[in-house]
């Protein structure tokens, strides 16, 4: 629970309760669906029920005649609007033109076909039912490996091989390493498609002020500024005539790190009807049309010596892209490639990625984005190697870890790991579970016919996205700090927190640096008309990059405060502490509020002195950060049913310094839940015709309270040297560490039966069959 703070204490490092919570716990926060405007209209999007079809005709007459309906638009009305953008570039990448409404063909179930606009959403819904679309249904392909087979239906007729790109990356001497290897193991490992399922679906309110040529777009997004730039381009508007306002955002997990057809479409509609228009995605639409995550089929080969030394890793990734590229779709598997060495010393890496079109909704960044897939694969392979060599999984990891003295450590994939002590969290976790006795307990349990597993994962990740050369739209972040004339502090961040708590952590940083009460600090984000250009919140970057930008802005600001304080004190020798500028000679002091007031009234400023106390800093990180950790999961499997019960979940994460451990714990818990969800329950299932058969919460199993184990969250602290706060980022850590820990545990439980690998999700039926089923 939160601790109480006395005013003189530093706040960074304290478990203080969040400043954003009062509006959230009272139900008074404003999410996009809470916005009401005079004359606001409502839009319903009609979507294709088929995964692949030609549109022969669309008859909108009956819908247009429905009371309350003001307009119905189809693809021919919106053809001139720019395509939904793909921000990633790869050599030879095939980019299909992604119209905001389908024109003559649909490519996945849920493809938007028409939009109905009415004065009332009930009427709009009624009218949508009256649109007649005549489809010529075509053969579809939903599985990426089937899509690569000769004779498979072509998702895009112009590219019959369904291949969007081939990507190759290599480091070291892979062939030689394999030739020298004493052991080679191979395994096909899948990382199933997942549905991000932010509890708030997407939504947009667009208002067009024709006289000012001003479009205001309220959107539930993680990237307001990028959205503004890109939507302006799609609609042919000047960038400064588009204002994106991000209200409260009810979760994203990457699914709102995107630019969607509906965001431009609502802008288009508002401009056409001259009235505000609201579109709120239904959960069914969210499942069908918001990006999904993962979708990997991976073929691993690992070369090693008999003593357990990993020599080389080869990986072929078949990435299910879906029918189109959304903002970052093709880039995601390249992050998997970067992450391939994990925490291990191996210098020989070869990766081949084939990006495959399927008649499904696009995949894109979902919590971890490429790194969970890689970590899952590597951590599985290390366990398989341990099994092959009859070595202990902990021992084989400790043997291969990059050691603390090797940092900064250049990897075979071209990264430079910043700082690390990889053995520390593993040893801590092993100590917490009392590993030696646990192994004895397991041996005894097996004697009694019990099925018990111990799973270890030691993950690394790439966070704090990122240096600009490695990030499609710039990897820096911005912060502005203003001291108001009363001395109150306003922070504006270019990041866009939506649950991660930066209204609190940033206020902690600002309060500490400025020596003011945290209640005097207000953090603002998410309105492009108020906040300087920024990149947004994703890739565990908000604090590690945005917080660092804030730190530097605060340093600039403190210099100004000292300068003005010195003027008031008529001294050049001053220092700033505790919210006061103090004359080092006389001990006389001026509080910040007085300095601020004087600075803005500007009565006594020397000539050529700029009034005001504002500082803005755009900080470009010199590198990514590389958090790491060790998760240990103890499972008990029901022999009769195959049901997995997680008896114990121990997470030891090292994300560098902790600004607010309470919030960090929350991030770990939530991340672990999503990783456990992938390991045990979640899976987007498409049938052969491209129908999403887990199309509602009825069939897509999310973790619920009674399904989750207690998570014992611990830390080791190895600060990064990439940013002055020493923080590495923690938003995705839990997700990345969890799935391999759970799967390793279950495979370990079943290892006496010769089981070496199981693909996720680990359904009870799958496990029951591996235990012999009815036989």
């Amino acid at each position, binding site marked *: 629970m939160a601790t109480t703070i006395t005013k003189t204490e530093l706040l960074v490092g304290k478990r203080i309760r969040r400043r954003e919570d009062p509006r959230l716990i009272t139900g008074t926060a404003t999410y996009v669906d809470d916005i009401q405007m005079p004359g606001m209209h409502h839009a319903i999007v009609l979507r294709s*029920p088929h995964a692949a079809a030609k549109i022969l005709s669309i008859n909108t007459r009956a819908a247009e005649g429905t009371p309350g309906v003001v307009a119905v638009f189809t693809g021919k009305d919106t053809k001139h609007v720019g395509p939904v953008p793909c921000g990633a570039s790869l050599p030879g990448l095939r980019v299909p033109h992604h119209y905001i409404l389908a024109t003559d063909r649909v490519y996945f179930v849920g493809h938007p076909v028409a939009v109905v606009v009415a004065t009332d959403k009930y009427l709009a819904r009624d009218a949508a039912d009256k649109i007649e679309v005549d489809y010529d249904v075509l053969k579809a392909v939903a599985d990426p490996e089937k899509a690569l087979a000769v004779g498979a239906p072509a998702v895009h007729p112009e590219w019959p091989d369904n291949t969007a790109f081939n990507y190759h990356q290599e480091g070291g001497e892979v062939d030689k390493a394999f030739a020298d290897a004493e052991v080679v193991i191979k395994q096909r490992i899948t990382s199933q498609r997942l549905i991000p399922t932010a509890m708030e679906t997407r939504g947009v309110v667009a208002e067009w002020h024709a006289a000012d040529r001003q479009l205001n777009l309220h959107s539930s997004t993680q990237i307001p500024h990028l959205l503004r730039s890109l939507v302006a381009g799609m609609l042919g508007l000047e960038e400064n005539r588009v204002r994106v306002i991000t209200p409260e955002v009810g979760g994203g997990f990457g699914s709102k790190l995107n630019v969607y057809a509906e965001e431009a479409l609502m802008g288009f509609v508002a401009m056409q009807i001259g009235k505000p228009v609201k579109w709120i995605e239904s959960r*069914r639409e969210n499942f069908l049309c918001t990006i999904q995550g993962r979708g990997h089929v991976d073929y691993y080969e690992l070369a090693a010596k008999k003593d357990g030394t990993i020599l080389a890793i080869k990986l072929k990734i078949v990435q299910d892209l879906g029918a189109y590229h959304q903002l970052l779709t093709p880039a995601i598997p390249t992050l998997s490639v970067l992450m391939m060495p994990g925490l291990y010393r191996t210098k020989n890496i070869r990766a081949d990625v084939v990006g495959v079109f399927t008649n499904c909704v696009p995949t894109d960044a979902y919590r971890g984005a490429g790194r969970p897939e890689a970590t899952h694969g590597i951590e599985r392979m290390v366990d398989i190697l341990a099994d092959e060599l009859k070595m202990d999984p902990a021992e084989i990891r400790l043997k291969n870890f990059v050691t603390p003295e090797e940092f900064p450590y250049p990897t075979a994939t071209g990264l430079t790991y910043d700082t690390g002590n990889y053995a520390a969290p593993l040893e801590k976790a092993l100590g917490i579970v009392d590993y030696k006795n646990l192994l004895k307990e397991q041996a005894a349990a097996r004697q009694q016919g019990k099925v018990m597993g111990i799973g270890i994962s030691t993950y690394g990740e790439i966070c704090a996205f990122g240096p600009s050369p490695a990030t499609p739209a710039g990897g820096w972040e911005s912060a502005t700090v203003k001291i108001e004339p009363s001395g109150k502090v306003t922070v504006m961040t270019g990041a866009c927190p939506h649950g991660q708590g930066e209204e609190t952590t940033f206020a902690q940083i600002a309060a500490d640096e400025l020596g003011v009460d945290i209640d005097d600090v207000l953090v603002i984000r998410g309105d492009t008309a108020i906040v300087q250009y920024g990149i947004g919140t994703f890739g565990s970057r908000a604090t590690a990059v945005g917080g660092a930008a804030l730190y530097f802005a605060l340093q600039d600001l403190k210099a100004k405060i000292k300068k003005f304080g010195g003027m008031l004190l008529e001294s050049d020798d001053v220092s700033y502490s505790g919210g006061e500028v103090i004359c080092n000679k006389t001990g006389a002091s001026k509080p910040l509020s007085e300095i601020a007031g004087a600075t803005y009234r500007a009565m006594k400023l020397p000539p050529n002195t700029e009034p005001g106390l504002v500082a803005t800093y755009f900080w470009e990180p010199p590198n990514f950060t590389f958090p790491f950790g060790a998760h240990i999961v103890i499972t008990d499997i029901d022999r009769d049913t195959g049901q997995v019960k997680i008896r114990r979940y121990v997470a030891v994460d090292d994300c560098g310094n902790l600004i607010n451990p309470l919030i960090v714990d929350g991030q770990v818990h939530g991340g672990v839940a999503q990783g456990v969800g992938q390991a045990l329950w979640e899976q987007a299932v498409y049938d052969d015709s491209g129908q999403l058969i887990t199309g509602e919460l009825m069939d897509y199993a999310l973790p619920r309270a009674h399904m989750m184990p207690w998570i014992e969250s611990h830390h080791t602290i190895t600060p990064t040297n990439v940013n002055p706060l020493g923080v590495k980022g923690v938003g995705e850590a839990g997700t990345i560490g969890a799935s391999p820990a759970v799967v390793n545990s279950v495979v370990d439980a079943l290892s006496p039966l010769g089981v070496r690998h199981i693909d996720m999700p680990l359904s009870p039926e799958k496990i029951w069959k591996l235990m012999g089923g009815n036989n």
Partner: protein
Amino acid sequence: MKISGTYTLPFPRERTFALMQDPEALARAIPGCEGLQHVGPDEYKMKMKMALASLSGAFEGKVRISDSVPPESFRLIVEGSGRIGFMKGEGLLTLAAVEGGTDVSYDGEAQVGGTMAAVGQRLIDGTAKMMIKRFFEKLAAEAAS
């Protein structure tokens, strides 16, 4: 989804085969069918009303018979679409004379799409079985006629 099974009809094989090609008998037997309209050789337009618990919807579709090998086997394709989704069933029906009648074995695929597929996953298998059962029961009842 794969569907397969066997149902015994109380008619000789020739009669059974003829019955299963008779649009009027089919119209009576296909659950919810409100009539078949001849549109081509062995092809019919169909109007259907499906009502299952509170689920209800009107479908328009077609019924097609192909690969007929009287009186041994034929292929039956039934498809329909409506506001709540669409469905398609295709299967090979094989007739074998047995004591007291004919065993009709079916082996094929059923496909469901649209909203009803999204919420009805756990029900599709059962519903398909139930509809097939009703189909054969109605056919069997033709004995009286």
